[in-house]
């Protein structure tokens, strides 16, 4: 039983009234890995995580977490599960120590081990000097470390983290990911949702969600290597004119701007994408350096989520995914 995947979901679907938030998702998440959910807001990341930990009941489909059926063995599953909400959801009017002691009691952490375990976690997350401080007065990064300490206090087999780093600075994010790798090293499986490309790239495996569906899945490296598009980088001063010219090419899937550079994604079917772009730019009298390049994760993301919306492209509506 322990050898099987941490999470298996089949045809997982959730509707809110007429809105389908999650649409027939299939997942197989192996143990002791960091699995990432990458997607824009409203793509169904949170809803999926909530169904996996039993907060929401699926409208259709089945979920097996740690070899157990979430619908029927919710209590058993919850004991082996740690969940970190998008928002800080510990008690701000309790101290760091009180919050952790409470969570230890709720998860039934052995009394004899409790104090020692809390101490170890605080040390690990650099919160030992904040022991008696009210949680509400901690900084964003400290709150988030406390939340992770609380979620991992009972040594869960599976950690579900819903956009854990959305409210903290880059340094805290880096520290946070160090902690995640440490936990994975101890055998914990981690499912983390994010909308940061750099975080997604650090996951062992990744699912890109868009409008409730998984539009790409695999190891980040593989996803980048096997992107279903050609990436052409254009360096030019006249970005606006270049954009307009690229918009005339029917095979262009999307255009993203990075400073004076443009990333254009072209359909795979184009034989020589570099030539194609060069011709279009020359025709529009735009001076530019054009180069066929390897895909970044953002290109993968854009290619996976931007398809089928070509009509929006000239406005650059799909180009703001880097946050």
């Amino acid at each position, binding site marked *: 039983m322990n050898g099987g995947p941490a999470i298996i979901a089949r045809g997982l679907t959730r509707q809110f009234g007429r809105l389908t938030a999650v649409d027939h998702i299939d997942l197989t998440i192996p143990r002791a890995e960091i699995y990432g959910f990458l997607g824009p807001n409203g793509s169904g990341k949170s809803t999926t995580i909530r169904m996996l*930990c*039993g*907060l*929401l*009941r699926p409208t259709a489909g089945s979920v097996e977490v740690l070899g157990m059926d979430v619908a029927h063995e919710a*209590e058993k599953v*919850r*004991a082996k*599960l740690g*969940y970190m*909400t998008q*928002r*800080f*959801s*510990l*008690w*701000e*009017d*309790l101290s760091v120590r*009180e919050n952790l002691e*409470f*969570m230890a*009691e*709720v*998860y*039934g952490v052995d009394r004899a081990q409790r104090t020692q375990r809390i101490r170890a976690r605080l040390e690990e997350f650099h919160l030992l000097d904040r022991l008696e401080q009210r949680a509400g007065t901690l900084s964003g990064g400290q709150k988030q470390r406390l939340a992770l300490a609380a979620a991992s206090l009972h040594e869960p087999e599976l950690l579900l983290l819903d956009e854990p780093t959305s409210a903290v600075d880059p340094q805290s994010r880096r520290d946070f990911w160090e902690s995640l790798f440490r936990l994975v090293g101890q055998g914990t499986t981690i499912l983390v949702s994010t909308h940061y490309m750099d975080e997604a790239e650090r996951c062992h495996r990744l699912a890109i969600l868009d409008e409730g569906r998984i539009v790409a899945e695999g190891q980040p490296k593989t996803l980048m290597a096997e992107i279903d598009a050609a990436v052409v980088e254009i360096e030019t001063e006249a970005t606006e004119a270049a954009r307009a010219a690229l918009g005339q090419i029917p095979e262009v899937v999307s255009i993203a701007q990075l400073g004076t550079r443009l990333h254009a994604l072209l359909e795979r079917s184009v034989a020589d994408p570099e030539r194609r772009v060069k011709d279009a730019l020359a025709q529009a009298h735009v001076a530019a350096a054009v180069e066929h390049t390897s895909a970044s994760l953002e290109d993968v993301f854009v290619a996976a989520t931007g398809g089928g919306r070509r009509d929006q492209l000239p406005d650059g509506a799909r180009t703001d995914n880097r946050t």
Partner: protein
Amino acid sequence: MISGALLQSWRRLHAIAAKEFRQLTRDRLTFGMVVGIPLIQILIFGYSINFDVRNISAGVVDYANTTASRALIADLQATQAIRVTEYLRSPAELEARIGSGAISAGIYIPPDFERRRQEQGRSAAQILVDGSEPSIEGVVRGLNSVESTPRAGQSTRGPGLIEVRTLYNPERRTAVQIVPALIGVILTMTMVVFTAVAIVRERERGNLELLITTPVSSAELMIGKLLPYVLVGLIQTTIVLLVGKWLFDVPIVGSLLDLYLAAGIFIAANLMLGLLISTLAQTQFQAIQMSLFTLLPSILLSGFMFPFDGMPRAAQLIAQVIPLTHFVELVRGIVLRGAPLASMPWAVGKLGIFFAVALALAALRFRKRLD
């Protein structure tokens, strides 16, 4: 194995109750309300009612000026219902002073007071009272005999001395009736709001979302959150009883155990109402509004303020679904008449039914909320 699961369940319950209690003592405003609301309420209700009926300012016109007339005035003052604030020269002046609102009552002792005292069926002196203030009028009339006939406008005649003594201190009965029932009003006011807000706040702040993913069950969560408030309610009951006894001399005729049992049942009913409200309200503000919405009918229709028998039939029916109605009946029975709780099974039963129905509705809604 089973006992192990029970032990775990108990640990979780205990952890939630302890956390809730800690937060309660830490939140100064709420903690202040726990003690402050009963104190302020009992002082306001207790004193405003007593203050009005005691020490009614009165003017005196004493044409007789004999030992007996002075003794009458002293006796009237001794009731504490009136307080002589001024001596005037004529009945006309007395009426003018009442008319201007400077005094609320006037005592007129005619020159032939001594002779009138000897005669049967004639009143020896006259008390004038401001009829525009019903409670004052009632109290001053109480100083005299029941046969007194109020005349149109503002004056009342009474036959005199002896009757004044027999109806001594009529205002005390009012205070004694108010204070025990006040326990119910205060509990209604605080219990419903506290529980509703405590639960809605956790949902608003996202705490609930975290709690649901832990092994805590719905029942453990609900009971753990409500238990500290049972204690709060019993503390408030004790405060009102002590202050009532100390400041207003409210005797407890019946069994103290019965009283606390009744309070316990009533607290439970109110906590369930609070729980139900918490499942309906989205924000703390809504929770407070809904609680206030239930408070007003409770005060007006329960018989706490206005006699139950005087209400129209429809109002009496509505009052049946208000827990305070039954608690007022219980508490007055126990505290004032010394009736045992067991002699009022209907009131207890109705509170029990309210508790069960509110619990069932809340449990139904609470489960849905997780979804």
